């Protein structure tokens, strides 16, 4: 049961875990691959140690979008945990966990992004975010039926 919305993305990549892991904590590497769709340039600043901060500023035609956070866990080459703040993620931190699992000939990356809109909310584990998504689907059905 998830109270908070969670996104999980997996990808199998034919490269060693250490190479992939290091690409997350190296400014020169991040500048190349941490580019969302319409971003022209990303300004990367980071302090890759537990408690250290990062700032990825994505410069798009519509303006600059700062993404900031703090490293919570750095276990090379298996697990990286950091907080994530962006103008599109609500006003408080969300949490990203990236796990690197060695496979024959490559690595599986499992990325989990949990919304943590507020401390009270994260503590109030009484039910499911999935219920709300189901409810939303039901209301859309109803709207379609009515329309």
């Amino acid at each position, binding site marked *: 049961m998830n109270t908070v919305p969670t996104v999980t993305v997996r*990808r199998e990549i034919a490269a060693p875990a250490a190479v992939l892991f290091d690409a997350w904590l190296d400014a020169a590497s991040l500048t190349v691959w941490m580019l969302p769709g319409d971003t022209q340039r990303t300004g990367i600043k980071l302090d890759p140690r537990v408690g250290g901060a990062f700032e990825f500023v994505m410069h798009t035609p519509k303006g600059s979008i700062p993404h900031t956070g703090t490293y919570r866990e750095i276990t090379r080459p298996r697990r990286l945990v950091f907080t994530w703040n962006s103008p599109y993620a609500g006003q408080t931190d969300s949490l990203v966990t990236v796990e690197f699992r060695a496979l024959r000939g490559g690595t599986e990356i499992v990325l989990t992004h949990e919304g943590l809109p507020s401390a009270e909310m994260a503590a109030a584990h009484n039910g499911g975010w999935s219920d709300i998504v189901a409810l939303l689907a039901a209301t859309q059905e109803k709207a379609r039926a009515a329309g």
Partner: protein
Amino acid sequence: MGEYRNAGLDAVFGAAADSTRRAILTRLAASDARVTEIAAGFPISLNSVSKHIRMLERAGLVRREIVGRDHYLSLNARPLAEAADWITEYRRFWTGKLAALEDFVTQKHPTTGKRKKR
């Protein structure tokens, strides 16, 4: 990332965190209702139900219309859709990032790319 505004996102997620509030939303998804009708369906006091309803109003999920002595409630699903977008947007965002990481790493280390067996 998307264009949606989420000033009230915290409040929407907060509303989703409680089973009584979700039950109220589910009831209102079926039809509009008076506050007293909603309260009758729960084994808690009218006062407690009212508090939950006020929280849902603050999140923009419930609208209240006062007609004489009756307070009618209706569901506004739009903030839910915006909250659900959070998932859609971030799934797209991180899927794109991991694809870009793969391109970056396999171009940088072309020999490791050939070792992959299926």
